[in-house]
């Protein structure tokens, strides 16, 4: 039992990282833009969030936790939206190939983060922002201690975990119940028709892609300042998480509400290697561990196969996903 609880406590924060990543990508893809730069954007967000709060902590005579949160969040969102803007400009205005641009953005984001990271690391292998970490990882008072198991599994996380859930619900509502959502989906499905209906396709694509990138970037921030205990290190971990977020988008069949449970499921699957053997009381070799870590990707492939077989229109990607829009000559 305690093993299971430990597993859940690991899985939910892990899921939150990729939940942000994939919710941002869902918004982007709903506009018909396939941004494969998610890992790069999460790098940008994570690094900007870390660097800004690190310097604030270091330079301010009396640093405060809540200011840390505001600074880190703003920096992370701005930096990742900048990544989205690059992608938008290249693919929407210049009509560059979306796949190539996205992959380049992944490399770019990782490169930028690691390059500037050198100045903070200053020769050591990692560097920390403890105050920001404390602020982000702060548990809810009262709720996180009074209800035994429920407190442990449900209320023992930093606030971004709950923000992610609320955001998923908000996104669901906006996409499905508002004019903006209807217009956005129309742009992603059939930009020609949307254009004919008087919707500004370019504006929607730009906004969705930049906002989406902003949301994805929070995933990177959450990883560094909460999940990774406020430590910036030179590992490639964020990239792996970014790809997992892209996989999760497919798993959710482009529905934000599915991202909630899908992300936690991915979290459980990711930590499967550590907890399942002990739950079952067996020992596994280390190479098996690596195999087990592949399970989320395998699940994604299975989901792809299943939705392709069922051919249900609602579960398909937006119809014009990955295509640039050329307005017909008038």
């Amino acid at each position: 039992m305690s093993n299971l609880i430990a597993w859940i406590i690991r899985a939910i924060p892990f899921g939150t990282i990729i939940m942000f990543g994939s919710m941002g990508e869902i918004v982007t893809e709903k506009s018909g833009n396939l941004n494969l730069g998610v890992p790069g954007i999460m790098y940008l967000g994570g690094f900007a969030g870390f660097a800004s709060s690190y310097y604030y902590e270091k330079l301010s005579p009396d640093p405060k936790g809540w200011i840390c949160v505001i600074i880190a969040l703003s920096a992370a969102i701005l930096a990742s939206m900048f990544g989205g803007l690059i992608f938008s400009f290249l693919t929407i205005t210049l009509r560059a190939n979306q796949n190539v641009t996205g992959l380049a953005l992944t490399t770019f984001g990782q490169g930028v983060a690691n390059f500037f990271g050198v100045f903070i690391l200053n020769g050591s292998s990692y560097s920390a922002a403890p105050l920001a970490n404390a602020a982000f990882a702060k548990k809810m008072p009262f709720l996180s201690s009074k209800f035994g198991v429920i407190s442990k599994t449900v209320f023992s996380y930093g606030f971004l975990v709950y923000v992610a859930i609320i955001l998923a619900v908000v996104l669901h509502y906006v996409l499905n119940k508002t004019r903006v959502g209807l217009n956005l989906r129309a742009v992603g499905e059939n930009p020609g028709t949307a254009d004919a209906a008087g919707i500004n396709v370019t504006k929607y694509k730009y906004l969705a892609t930049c906002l989406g990138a902003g949301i994805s970037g929070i995933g990177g921030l959450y990883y560094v300042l909460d999940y990774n205990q406020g430590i910036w290190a030179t590992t490639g971990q964020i990239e792996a998480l970014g790809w997992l977020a892209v996989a999760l988008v497919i798993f959710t069949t482009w529905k934000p509400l599915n991202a909630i449970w899908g992300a936690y499921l991915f979290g459980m699957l990711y930590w499967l290697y550590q907890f399942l053997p002990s739950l079952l009381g067996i020992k596994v070799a280390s190479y098996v561990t690596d195999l087990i870590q592949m399970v989320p990707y395998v699940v994604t492939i299975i989901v792809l196969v299943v939705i392709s077989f069922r051919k249900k229109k609602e579960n398909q990607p937006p119809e014009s996903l990955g295509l640039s829009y050329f307005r017909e000559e008038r």
Partner: protein
Amino acid sequence: MEYAVQLKNVTKTFGKVVANKDVSLDIRKGEILSLLGENGSGKTTLMNMIAGIYYPDEGEIFVNGAPVEIRSPKDAYNLGIGMIHQHFKLIDVFTAVENIALGLEKSEKFDMKAIQAKTQEICDRYHFDLNLSQKVYEMSVSQKQTLEIVKVLYRGADILILDEPTAVLTPQETERLFEVIRNMKNDNKSVIIITHKLHEVLEISDRVAILRKGEYIGAVDTKDATENSLTEMMVGKKVELNIQRSEPENTVKRLSISNLTVYNKEKVKVLDDISFDAYGGEILGIAGISGNGQKELLEAIAGLQVTAEGSSIRFYERGKESSPMELVGRTPKKIRDAGIHLAFVPEDRLGMGLVGSMGMTGNMLLKSYGRGRLPITDTKGPKQLAERVKKELEVVTPSINTPVSRLSGGNVQKVLVGREIAEEPTVLMTAYAVRGLDINTSYTIYNLLDEEKKKGVAVIYVGEDLDVLIDLCDRILVLCDGKANGIVEGRRTTKEEVGLLMTNLKKGGAENE
């Protein structure tokens, strides 16, 4: 007389092509007007100018008596004008109501329930049969069309333009559409129907306006019109073209097609029980309004269409005339190798048969990549062929390696036709071979086809221009609604006869001569 829309001396050109020349046309309030004309007579262009898709180069448009500028579909909506295009502008995964809600004015509150109620009211008033919560991808073509009409009415249109609305409908659906149109007329709305089906014109409209080659010929009250009088106005007098036409010699039966039936994706019959023969040493023309099965017929012969049971296409190979080969069920490649070649010129010339980014050599290679000592393909042959085509057909290109997408339309077509001819086929099928070409290049192609005929090739020529068909072809098969509506002799027929066969299905179909 109150007019809904008046066009005064409207002219529209695309580059050098004049789509509409000095057209003046009135549309009255509360009438159903048919706009009649052959393919390319400028009907849709003219209407697109009222709907805000195009803007006229010259001339004026009046709506309800006042001069207006219609710069966008939105302007048209605001003036109460709505057009239902042939290609529907709908989002597949949205419901009917969501499609209607899309792009509504910002001033209107986004309340799905209210929108649904208002839509339902429109449906009830005009007796539209529409399930508002149904997704578009689950709808039939007719339902999608209904949705487009409702969408336009929802935005308050009083003037509706329908571009060939019955082209995709079954007879029963057409009947229902007509009923709805009459309901709209009774509601004092003006309806314009672009069409070339004469019996529908006579059935539904109050007046008929006729366009020919971009020019306005006139308008008549439907009650004074007959099919013959309308056809005459539509096709006009025969123009002598002096196309070289040799007498067919030693004709040999090459293709024998019987009971050919093809269904499209929507399970609608696009070819219905077609039977005819094609002979080596003659040119068989295929006439018909576009979209009446010409493309499917050629593709079926080339093995690119799935044919229904009972269809038979027999091919009499050179030297093996006594034992014909059944083409149904064979792969396109087998059929090609047997000597049946198809040169199809689609609306976008590079859409079929040529690769735009490759040069002439590469495009020649496409049809012969299997030759040579595998795995290395023979490139010398295609290169020589490209040189030959370039020289003989006078293709204007800097080099045979220049990507064909950089060539002008006429030259692209020469490459396409030249490649097929060079393979020395037994049967050569060409579709719209002169589409978009200037007069001189067109004659080059006509002469080429005549040369092929002299060589004993069975040429099948699908064309749009009746004058050309009558002057070039030995026999003309006329398609109407996917049926063979008759075969006429090119030397003896008249334009009126062919025109009537194209627009007017004979009872009981055609008798094969």
